[in-house]
């Protein structure tokens, strides 16, 4: 009871909950769900980008892409350890992921079909992630908030690099410009859908806002993102694929057509273009690596943990 009172007081004072603090089961469960999903998204999100590492048409861009994928693996590791502070193991979370019981962001289930997709993915989905995560940096769970500060910084960097890649295409050949427009056409709505269902349909939002796990509603964040993108699209000379998109002086915001949430539901349910492929790839990497992890464990057991790298 004392714990509960302290928890409520801390939340009310906009303080941070730490791993050893008492917290309601629902709070813990929500956080585990959210952080695991975030971690899985970092890990699974490496795949559409890695698809282009071997074919990157300049060494500088290849290096940037490898570094981005590396950052994401690092974020995944960091986030799994944050989730572990809530009493679950990485192994369990991976089992949940591999079994399809825990999710990752739906945009990852779309294919990267050209080099321009690498840029569009970074510009739009990392851009959306930043908008989302900047707001989450004030989340009530301390370890997650601190992780997000670091992650946000790197994601902003990725977002800018994506824009820079696209900017080069926008100054390029007709084929490059066509590639750029087609990629933006493909990634606009998957990025908008990243903010989740509209507020009136969102099942977790109210409680998460009350617990200050979330700090803004899906629709607020989506609007913020659209307002940021429009001038950037102008610089790139691309048309965002929404004929209804226009400035609304009265609202001080852009009007726009929201994503097709039926499509979002289908993709989350497992029926996006690449869900099966992504999960099969992840499972195969895990299975192919089993003998290596077993060897490392056997070696550590023989020689003591101190010998482990």
């Amino acid at each position: 009871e004392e714990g509960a009172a302290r928890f409520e007081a801390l939340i009310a004072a906009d303080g941070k909950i730490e791993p050893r603090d008492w917290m309601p089961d629902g709070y813990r469960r929500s956080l585990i769900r959210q952080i695991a999903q975030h971690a899985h998204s970092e890990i699974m999100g490496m795949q559409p980008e890695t698809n282009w590492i071997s074919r990157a048409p300049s060494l500088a861009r290849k290096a940037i892409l490898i570094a981005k994928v590396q950052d994401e693996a690092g974020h995944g590791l960091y986030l799994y350890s944050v989730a572990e502070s809530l009493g679950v193991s990485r192994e369990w979370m991976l089992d949940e992921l591999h079994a399809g019981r825990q999710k990752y962001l739906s945009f990852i289930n779309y294919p990267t079909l050209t080099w321009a997709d690498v840029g569009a993915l970074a510009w739009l989905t990392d851009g959306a992630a930043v908008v989302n995560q900047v707001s989450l940096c004030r989340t009530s769970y301390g370890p997650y908030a601190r992780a997000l500060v670091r992650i946000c910084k790197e994601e902003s960097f990725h977002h800018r690099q994506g824009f820079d890649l696209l900017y080069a295409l926008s100054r390029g050949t007709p084929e490059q410009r066509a590639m750029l427009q087609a990629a933006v056409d493909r990634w606009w709505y998957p990025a908008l859908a990243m903010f989740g269902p509209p507020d009136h349909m969102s099942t977790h939002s109210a409680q998460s806002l009350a617990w200050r796990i979330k700090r803004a509603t899906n629709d607020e964040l989506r609007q913020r993102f659209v307002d940021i993108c429009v001038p950037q699209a102008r610089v790139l000379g691309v048309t965002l694929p929404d004929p209804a998109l226009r400035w609304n002086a009265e609202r001080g915001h852009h009007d726009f057509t929201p994503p097709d949430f039926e499509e979002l539901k289908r993709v989350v349910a497992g029926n996006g273009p690449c869900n099966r492929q992504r999960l099969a790839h992840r499972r195969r990497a895990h299975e192919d690596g089993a003998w290596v992890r077993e060897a490392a464990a056997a070696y550590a057991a023989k020689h003591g943990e101190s010998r482990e790298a």
Partner: protein
Amino acid sequence: MTAPMTTTGPDLRDYVLRLGDDALVAAQRVAGWCTRAPQFEEDVALANIALDLLGQARALLTYAGELEGLGRDEDALAFGRDEHEFRNVQLVELPDDDFATAIAKMLFFGVYQRLLYTGLSRAADPTLAGIAAKAAKETAYHVDHAVSWTLRLGDGTAESHRRMQAAVDHVWPYTHELFEPGPPPAAAGPGADPAALRGPWCREVEQVLAEATLRRPEDGWAPTGGRSGVHTEAFGHLLAEMQYVYRAHPGARW
């Protein structure tokens, strides 16, 4: 399609190109592990190593292009040359059939690179010396990493021992090419004579293998050709993938 390779060009340019090609092809292979590593820590580590190698390749190819003086930048050299114009050893182009093969390649190539770069860091040519000094530090980390996995796989389970020994046996013959005679150009300095590196390389590698309970293979078959542009069949497939987009858009900038 590409400027012809001058065989009468400056010695140093050919030499730098070799080093650059070694690093570039090694980077391409190591980067192939992204999202496929046995654990996420390893995804991070291998991406790191790929980035180091790619950074070395970029510095070296840029410098080779400058020495050549034909206006080719790192990308023209990486993406615009045909297979027979690449000067890397065959070892780095071997497919990473499994994690053990990747580690065996990294161990053998890493120890070689560290010894070579350490020597080159005293080169008369200041640009080369600068690149080498930075790279020597990086490769020390690659070697540490490869050693720690060689030990764990060699002295881990029966299965991992079997696989690691098979990988060592498979890759070993390709290590001879690293030390093929031919003194480096004067500007590279005496510390970089490949023939002189073989002794220290053997001692270091043999010690690691012994500690990992692995058998050091017999010397015998010693495939070669990479330094004169003769590669393995796997290399053409690597290049097709690596160069496709660049070649599909002649003249484009990225």
